[in-house]
């Protein structure tokens, strides 16, 4: 048994977000972080490792600097890392991305009782699509919005959140789970882990580039990258700033506001 964790390096949209004049994101000026839900996915995998001693592999698709994030995952306790990186992959939408990552996971190899962990969604796109689409490409069952995981023989019993409650779902392995932050509290990097994370013998970092993946049966080379992706950005734009409202600055602003609301029949 092993755990494969899909992680993504994202711009930190919780801080100041820089937008260029052409309406695209100025990524260069923004800090990058590991996507928060993905840290919960990694933690879930590490807990499985704590309980069973299984191997934990981390995989990402991104530009070469994403290697730093993978090293951090190793410092948290992961064993091996895979960086899917290639100019040909750039600009891929979720459909294209999931094909590429599925092909990468195919290279790693999915065995009988493996579990693939993804975060529910990434904070840059908020789509929540890539996890389920990887599962489809690999022909695996999926459960999304997972808030609890228990092992039950070769199956898993998971709590799947709904808006107004939850479902308890039993799922066969191998399978793919997408994790929400309520699942756990991600651990920090350990000192030993930080020392070890650049030790390539103990923790090999494999680069999977376009030549390495292009002949995989899960990839159609004409539906990847910016041009091949099924969806295209037709326009991107920033919302207009709303005109300034009225600030109530009298000595009795509450009375002033109540008066206006009554006069305008809002109350």
């Amino acid at each position, binding site marked *: 048994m092993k755990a494969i964790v899909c992680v993504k390096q994202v711009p930190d949209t919780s801080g100041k977000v820089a937008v260029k004049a052409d309406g695209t994101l100025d990524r260069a000026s923004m800090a990058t972080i590991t996507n928060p839900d993905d840290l919960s996915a990694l933690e879930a995998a590490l807990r499985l490792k704590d309980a069973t001693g299984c191997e934990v592999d981390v995989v990402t698709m991104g530009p070469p600097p994403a290697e730093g994030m993978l090293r951090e995952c190793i410092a948290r306790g992961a064993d091996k890392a895979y960086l899917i990186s290639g100019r040909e992959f750039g600009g891929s939408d979720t459909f294209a991305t999931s094909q590429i990552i599925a092909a990468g996971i195919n290279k790693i190899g999915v065995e009988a009782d493996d579990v693939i962990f993804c975060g529910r969604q990434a904070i840059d796109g908020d789509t929540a699509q890539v996890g389920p689409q990887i599962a489809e490409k690999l022909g695996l069952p999926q459960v999304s919005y997972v808030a609890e995981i228990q092992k039950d023989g070769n199956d898993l019993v998971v709590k799947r959140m709904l*808006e107004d409650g939850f479902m308890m779902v039993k799922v066969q392995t191998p399978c793919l789970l997408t994790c929400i932050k309520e699942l756990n509290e991600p651990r920090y990097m350990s000192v030993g882990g930080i020392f070890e994370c650049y030790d390539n013998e103990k923790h090999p970092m494999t680069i999977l580039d376009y030549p390495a993946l292009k002949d995989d049966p899960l990839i159609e080379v004409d539906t990847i990258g910016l041009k091949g992706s099924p969806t295209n950005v*037709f326009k991107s734009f*920033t919302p207009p700033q709303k005109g300034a409202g009225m600030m109530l600055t009298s000595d009795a602003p*509450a009375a002033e*506001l109540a008066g206006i609301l009554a006069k305008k029949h809002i109350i």
Partner: protein
Amino acid sequence: MAYDFRDIAAFKGVWVFCEQREGVLQNTDFELISEGRKLADELGCELAGIVLGNGISDETAKEVGGYGADKVIVCDSPLLEHYTTDAYAKVLCDKVREYKPEVFLIGATNIGRDLAPRMAARLHTGLTADATHLDIDTTKYVEFLKESSSLDLSKQKFDYEDRNLKMTRPAFGGHLMATIICPRFRPQMSTVRPGVMKKAEFNADKAAACVVERPAFELTEADIKTQVLSVEKAAKNMVDLIGADIIVSVGRGINKDVQKGIELAQQLADALGGGVVGSSRALVDAGLISADHQVGQTGKTVHPKIYVALGISGAIQHTAGMQDSETIIAINKNESAPIFGVADYGIVGDLFKVVPQLINEIKAAKAAK
């Protein structure tokens, strides 16, 4: 004829996946049907809802007709009683291959967001996530850009003959809007944020006239690799933000006395005519209020008649979910808080002092009417 996702001309009609929970159709279904009607009219084609479940009566199914559907397709089986990705994706993909709709909309609920990507991957087509605006007609799309973007349209060229579905959604936590198209493959799929599209008035005559189809489909237990052991409702009542006319939301500004802050918010909502308490993400993340209260990009999108923001700084993640409210009132200690940029009325002050005064003044103003 073989199914070919590239054969654009072979696809006709707009479909809406209508989600039922415990046999009851959801509000989101009706919102999407209402929006689907608009798109079907722009395309000059038929609008159908598709419902999967167990024991779905004609009467229940025809409800979607009351919001504008010409037809409702029902796939009924004990294996479809509870949602499972495997069963629902199989039946829906098989029906899409059979009927070939050109547009397929799914509510961006926890279930819709699980189902839609799986289907799009299997059908070999694109999928837009959490759309908040949809257009076929380019003239209408340009009108929308005029109102909702800061683009200089005089420099833009548009193809007014274009019949692709233009799917607009927030990106990067609401900092950017992006319009997505899927020009080469069909169906054009999108999940749509609950609470955003306006529900049409229910029309009983149209509901009665709605055609119910129950086509044959193949599904066996062996197709389903997951098993639903139980479905549990949340123990407490969930707050209905989307249906509320009045929402008073609280943010980090109530930190000094959270319980009192929430109480004041509820009292203010009651004084304004009866409403519910919302919250910013900060309080939810800190575990001070449950996630069903959260308004914003990762919470709910709301457009009540009155929205009051108490001690909320107004990060764009929050304002993305409430800026279309009819009247926005903000109370914040910090006069440079960005929330004042979207508010119609602002008061700079300590909410623990201002809100009790405001409650009294509103009661007095109402009594004087």
